[in-house]
């Protein structure tokens, strides 16, 4: 038990250190926090027509961007920064200390939670101020929001750690990871209305978590009447949860098997 507490204590200390480093690396802050807000302004300003009764594209887009925020701060962030830490020798140094290995991942999760919260709060703020995003006033919607954020960020974090073994170097990581995220955003109903995409694109996107995250966020932020506009004719909350859990398990297994502390 004391070992668990020790791992947790050091993990929290790593989390605060990670946040400190994140805040001081200005490019990273701009990239993960400001970029989605800028996109919101661009897309929200260009496409402001109604896509369904009393639903504008801007509202649709904010819901998608909040879902993307989970992928950005979990998957994209970790799949890029972990290879960089491997290159810089940070991971090798940690591996040579008595730091419990779990603490490293606890620290990463704390940093993900931090940047994700910042991102969501900013998107909610700007979305509701400028783009007609309606903050839900029903408790049930907030409960769904809470579990989608929790499960979605856990899933994205685990997949980010799993994917961190793919880029050959820290410098290559961004070039490998960013296009994947951008393509998934195009395919998953962030930049375009999902139901208007070609069928093969919809089916491809349905394999990956982002499509399901956007769908869940639409349940939270769009009127219930929008359900009929979804491809399946409903928001499919049960299916969303199932798919996120499956990806989390797959990601965790891959991460355990492939995580490397050293350059090859």
């Amino acid at each position, binding site marked *: 038990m004391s*070992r668990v507490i020790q791992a947790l204590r*050091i993990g929290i*200390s*790593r989390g605060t*250190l990670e946040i*400190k*480093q994140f805040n*001081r*690396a200005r490019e990273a802050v701009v990239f993960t926090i400001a970029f989605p807000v800028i996109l919101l302004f661009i897309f929200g300003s260009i496409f402001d027509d109604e896509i369904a009764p009393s639903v504008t594209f801007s509202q649709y887009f904010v819901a998608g961007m909040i879902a993307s925020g989970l992928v950005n701060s979990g998957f994209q962030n970790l799949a890029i920064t972990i290879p960089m*830490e491997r290159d*810089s*020798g*940070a991971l*090798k*140094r940690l*591996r*040579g*200390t*008595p*730091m*419990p290995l779990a603490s490293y991942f606890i620290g990463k999760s704390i940093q993900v939670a931090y940047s994700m919260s910042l991102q969501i709060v900013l998107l909610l703020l700007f979305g509701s101020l400028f783009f007609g995003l309606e903050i839900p006033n029903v408790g049930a919607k907030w409960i769904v929001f809470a579990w989608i954020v929790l499960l979605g960020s856990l899933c994205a974090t685990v997949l980010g750690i799993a994917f961190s073994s793919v880029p050959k170097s820290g410098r290559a990581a961004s070039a490998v990871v960013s296009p994947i995220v951008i393509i998934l955003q195009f395919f998953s109903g962030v930049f375009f209305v999902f139901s208007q995409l070609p069928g093969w694109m919809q089916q491809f996107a349905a394999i990956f978590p982002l499509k399901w995250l956007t769908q869940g966020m639409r349940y939270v932020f769009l009127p219930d009447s929008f359900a009929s506009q979804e491809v399946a004719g409903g928001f499919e909350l049960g299916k969303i949860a199932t798919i996120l859990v499956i990806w989390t398990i797959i990601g965790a297994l891959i991460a355990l098997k492939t995580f490397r502390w*050293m350059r090859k």
Partner: protein
Amino acid sequence: MPTATSVIQVKGLKKCYGTLTAVDSLDLSIEAGEIFALLGPNGAGKTTTVEILEGYRTRDSGDVSVLGFDPANRGDAANSWRDRIGIVLQDSADGADLTVEESITHFSKYYSKRRDLDHLIQAVGLDEKRKSRVHNLSGGQRRRLDVALGLVGTPELLFLDEPTTGFDPEARRAFWDLIRTLKEDGTTILLTTHYLDEAEALADRVGVIAGGKLIEVATPATLGGREQALATVSWRDHSGVLREESAADPTSILRRLLGDFDGEIPALTVKRPTLEEIYLRMIGESK
């Protein structure tokens, strides 16, 4: 000879990468409290050996014991073992956005026997830089921070990999003094270095690795038969020609020269082979 006080014991260590045998039947023992320098050209198996001892790499065969523990083991026992060792790696570039003090304070939390922060910062000579971000440090200061991070847990055994690369001569002397005080405190140190003068200044014993094998272990003064090697006396003779003679007893040459010259013997030097010359000869022979 492995003894009860051996901190590191290696027997028949072997490691292959594909068809390349990086380390081949290597035996090594390092005693408590000594500074042992491992020398060898790049690709000789030095780094592989040290990384196996540090627990970073697995081995193919052989017995390895470091502080009584097999570094290939994992889990909680491995963490208790890491609590007793310190590792100073080559070319790390991490934590650039933290300050010196933040880095050391954070790393100290991993260990049970923490060194006093102020003492440690002072000992590595970073007192004036303690509030500086790591990316603003010079190469030598960065290295000294690496050393501080390796020392923060009061290790019984310290691995130092090329610690003074990029140091100016003054910083190198200061660093040597720091290492000597660690030795006085009883820390065992395994040093790998390309600087033979560094090995000579610090090490109680040196071991030379070539072709994956430890070809000799000796004190810096006796490595490669250095103590019996001929000394060379050179001087300028009466007609101004530079002369050179080698002998096991150079004093006899000097006596003769003192008779030959009334006053000063022009351009007189007596030179014994440096550790570097001996080392280069050994490496050359092993090829």
